[in-house]
């Protein structure tokens, strides 16, 4: 008996297609089960001050609404200290001085930032600021972390 060539081709082709069909889902499945490429673990950022801004008003976000380095004697002076990094306990201090280093005020906040944060300090003087040059020094855990100078003019 002689096989029909067309029939042989058809049978072989069907077999190949069947195998491909059976394997295709496996390979597709394998692809979907591949472990995702490892991503870099987020690195803990050490606490550090990124900006010190001065102004005579702050918003709800604790940032000064209009940065300035010149104030009127009647102004409340705000320092907005932006920071990054996490820490369980940071002693953030603001030291305000007048002219040749005369201490105006020094205050400290103990914070536990979990990431970017804004901390504000403010000072006011009921009978008005004497005209002159002032300086703000910011320290974190006793180490200098930023500074700003400003003037008060009549």
């Amino acid at each position, binding site marked *: 008996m002689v096989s029909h060539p067309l029939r042989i081709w058809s049978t072989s082709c069907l077999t190949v297609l069947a195998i491909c069909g059976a394997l295709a889902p496996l390979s597709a499945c394998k692809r979907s089960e591949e472990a995702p490429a490892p991503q870099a673990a987020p690195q803990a950022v050490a606490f550090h001050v990124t900006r010190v801004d001065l102004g005579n008003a702050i918003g709800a976000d604790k940032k000064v609404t209009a940065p300035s380095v010149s104030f009127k004697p009647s102004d409340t002076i705000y320092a907005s200290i932006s920071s990054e990094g996490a820490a369980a306990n940071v002693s953030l201090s603001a030291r305000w001085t007048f002219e040749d280093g005369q201490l105006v005020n020094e205050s400290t906040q103990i914070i536990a930032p*979990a990431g970017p944060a804004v901390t504000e300090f403010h000072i006011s*003087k009921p009978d008005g600021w*004497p005209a002159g040059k002032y300086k703000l020094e910011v320290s974190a*855990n006793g180490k200098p972390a930023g500074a700003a100078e400003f003037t008060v003019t009549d």
Partner: protein
Amino acid sequence: MPDEKPKPSFGNVQSGGSSTAPAAPANAPAAPRTYTVVAGDSLSKIAKKLYGDGNKWKRIFEANRDTVKNPDLIHPGQVLKIPDA
């Protein structure tokens, strides 16, 4: 002798602050408070500034015995540990 401009008083300065970061828990170990000596400072002046009582200078002296040998001799720029009042 030149006239010295009288120094203004900042005794009535009011201050405050707040933060978007939470306050550290009260039982967290507090970071040591420090003070940087400026020209004209003495331990009693520093105690007066920081504690409101110049007689508490010995607390500062005791906390800094490792770096301050003579309580009458401190230097501008020197960083002192300030114990709680």
